[in-house]
């Protein structure tokens, strides 16, 4: 049973279509991330699920009931939807202390004082904010505020957590910490979680499935692994992965049955070892994509897909080194394990791993599959 279902959901803001006929099925207990750039509609979608935004068309339902349906004339206001929501800005009520921030919603549910009291303490414990009951939000650091917001959401014990970029206001170190906290919490509590972020790293590390969105539409809806290794289109390929995937535009040149090259005015790459390349017709315009970690610096062996380039910059980062190199107008990045050193303008051979090479149709920008 799906925990949440969206059917044909559309949202317009005046002339702008923020969400375009979205269909989505969210499984119970899964951690689903809505991932995409600013303005892609992910936050709007989340808010529509919560009831903070009204769709213009479509239907939103949980396994128990319909939350919104234009056709059937159903609308359940947010206060009755029984979902936990965490805001990007945390939205802690500044005039109430931590304990009250958490208990306000529980009081609205008419729970007994003892239950409320114990729940408040439990959640604070879970987010390691025990002892902060009487503090006011203005007295807390960003990270502490975030944890109180989290506690507030958990305390509602609703089974559905909606989170709108909850980590984006934290500094890098804290963010990494909190990611593991969130993941741990999700697994402990088993709640269905819908998570919005623009940070692809977050999406990859936390999610069971990811919905990549752009301009109100779903670009790909898949597991992190699939999204990473088999992006359905150029947008997903470019958006996910750090450093970004390398792209080479060109056309297929088949000299004979077994030899296939990808060529553009600067380079010629022998892609004969790629089965996908073999299936393409001569002259087809394609974009070759290869992730930086799937390239190694070699000697330019014959028959292997490799490119000759000049070193542009070397960026060591402790566990690995990223080298930016230019081949004419084409720029490529290589991720190498450990520490390597090259000088600017050194000539190197970039050898790609054949099975990791992806081809995208130049016109449709979709992945070419066998």
């Amino acid at each position: 049973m799906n925990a949440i279902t969206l059917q044909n959901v559309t949202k317009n803001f005046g002339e702008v279509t923020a969400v375009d006929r979205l269909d989505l099925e969210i499984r119970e207990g899964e951690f689903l991330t809505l991932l995409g750039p600013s303005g892609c509609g992910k936050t709007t979608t989340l808010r529509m699920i919560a009831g903070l935004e009204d769709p213009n068309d479509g239907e939103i339902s949980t396994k128990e009931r319909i939350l919104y349906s234009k056709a059937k004339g159903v609308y359940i206001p947010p206060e009755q939807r029984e979902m936990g929501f965490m805001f990007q800005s945390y939205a802690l009520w500044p005039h109430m202390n931590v304990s009250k921030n958490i208990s306000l919603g529980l009081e609205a549910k008419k729970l007994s004082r003892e239950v409320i009291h114990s729940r408040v303490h439990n959640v604070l414990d879970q987010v390691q904010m025990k002892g902060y009951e009487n503090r006011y939000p203005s007295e807390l650091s960003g990270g502490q505020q975030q944890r109180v917001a989290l506690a507030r959401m958990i305390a509602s014990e609703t089974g559905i957590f909606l989170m709108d970029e909850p980590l984006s206001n934290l500094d890098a170190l804290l963010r990494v910490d909190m990611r593991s906290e969130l993941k741990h919490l999700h697994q402990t509590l088993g709640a269905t979680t819908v998570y919005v972020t623009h940070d692809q790293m977050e999406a990859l590390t936390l999610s069971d499935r990811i919905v990549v969105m752009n301009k109100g539409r779903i670009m790909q809806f898949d597991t992190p692994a699939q999204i990473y290794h088999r992006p359905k289109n150029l947008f997903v390929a470019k958006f996910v992965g750090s450093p970004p995937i390398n792209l080479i535009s060109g056309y297929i040149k088949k000299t004979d049955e077994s030899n296939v090259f990808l060529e553009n005015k600067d380079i010629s790459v022998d892609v004969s070892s790629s089965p996908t390349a073999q299936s393409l017709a001569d002259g087809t315009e394609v974009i070759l994509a290869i992730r930086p970690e799937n390239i190694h610096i070699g000697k330019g062996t014959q028959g292997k897909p490799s490119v000759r380039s000049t070193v542009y910059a070397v960026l060591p980062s402790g566990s690995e080194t990223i080298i930016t190199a230019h081949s004419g107008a084409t720029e490529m990045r290589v991720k190498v394990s450990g520490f390597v050193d090259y000088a600017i303008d050194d000539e190197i051979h970039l050898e790609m791993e054949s099975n990791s090479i992806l081809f995208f149709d130049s016109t449709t920008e979709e992945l070419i599959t066998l």
Partner: protein
Amino acid sequence: MKPRYRFLMSRLRSKPELILSILFIIVFSFLIIVPFLRMIYTTFTYQGYDLRLKRDAVEGAFTLFHYMRVFASDLTESFLIKPLLHSLAVGFGVTVLAMILGSIFAWIFVRTDIPHKKFFQTVITIPYMIPSWVIALVWVLFFQNNRIGGTAGIVQSLLGIPIPDWLAYGYVPIVITLALHYYAYTFLMISGALRTIDSELEEAGAVAGLQRSKVLIKITFPLVLPALGSSFVLTFTRSMGTFGTPALLGLPVRFFTLPTQIYAMINSRNVGDAFVLALVLIVLAVTAILINNKMIGVRKSFVTMKGKGFRANPMKLGTSKPLIMTFLVVFLLLVIVLPLIMLTLSTFMLIPDNYSAGNMTSHFWIGDSDPMISSGQKGILKNEGIMSAMFNSIRLGIISAVLNAFIGLLIGYTVVKNRGTKIAKTIEAVAFAPYVFPGIAFAAIYLGMFSQPLGPIPALYGTFSLIVLIVIVKNLPFSSRSGISAIMQIDASLEESAVTQGIPWLKRFRLIILPLSKSGFFSGMLLTFITSVRELSLVILLVTPKTELLTTMIFAYKTQEQTQHVNGVTLVLLFIIIVANVLIRLVSLKSKYKTIDIG
């Protein structure tokens, strides 16, 4: 010694805010603190008037005479207690009513989907531009009864409904007419606060399961509370210190307030007692402010300035929409259109209160001098005195608007850059102090102070500069506040980047700070213009025939009982205010500088 001196001076030069602080402290002590001290000094010494009551008194000698008279004599009840109680009652009544009205309107315009919002919002604040006693005049026109003899007002004479004294005069009409004037003020403050509430705070309430009403009570209301508190205090202080309306509506039933008593005393040159009463008003105002700060102000910085403000869906009015629209339209008609029509009509009536067509004349507008009519005063449009007064009023409005805006900005800069220090707090507090001074007492002090040359400053008595000066000082509370908030909007890094590039202070001020505060600048200037042009009690003691203003002319005509001229010049005044309003709005719309949203 020398190197230390040089070090100090170079530190000083690199911190323009320190130089400004010192400057402001000096200027403020002179213009605000000293007058206040003089006021106190006067209350403790014998004045000329007192010698007429107590022939053996020595002028200038220390005495508790005034305090005894006001606080501990047979006169106490009539000097102090009754007027004080009346003033407090008026203050509370007006403020509560104005806040209810203001809140209702604020809610309607910020939170609901009522149509034509822009139109209504502009129009709803018009009553604030009309001098409050004009509304009182209209009330008298409608509701007066035979108490003073003669014919009754429209309601009683045309509709035959007898009007009881308590409705025609005294407390009830005073509160109603003042509230109809001040609600615009509370409306602006409360709607401003409602607008800046982060809507996510209310959404968080909704998703936590709170019903709409609970969200309002537990989340929205506490967040608006500081604004409610401020508007309460400000309205309370102002309405307690109003002179015009209580004088007009209170006199026939002997409803005296502190300002009317102060005015009567100053008129007979009894400054000693007058200033004691003025001090009472000041103490009341300060107490109100302190109470407000204690109860609410502690957590003042509630309003999350995260820049998003209120953007959630407006409440749908549905079936109640036509009802509310009707209410709004009727309200506006009654409070704005009707008084204006009555005013205009009356300027065409030869014999007042005679509405027959044969009684209509354009004499009061374009007539030449006729000794039989209004003691030979020329029609308004031909009257050189009025034209020159109009010129003076406009001059005053413009000069004070511009200067106040600049000074306010400078004060803002000084206070914000020195934020947290005692100097900043002192400057901020002293800049706000003139708010609690009753205008007429303030003017009386300035009159005394500037009647003689003071060091390098010549005697400013009778000059236009003195009027400009006092108007600027009286407007400081407002302009310093807006200056402070304007500067606070500008992220410090914007100026700091200029500093690192070696740009000197004046240039930074001109090229960075000034342009970025332009939007608040204009609306502040408009408000100062309107306030200055409407000022009466502050300037009435200071004008001379060459420096006559529209408001003082209205007052003079009132003393001479030339009602048509009174009403006509009032219309001229209103016209100027509305034109200024329109002009400034146009200019500020053109100016594209909005506050930059950082982050």
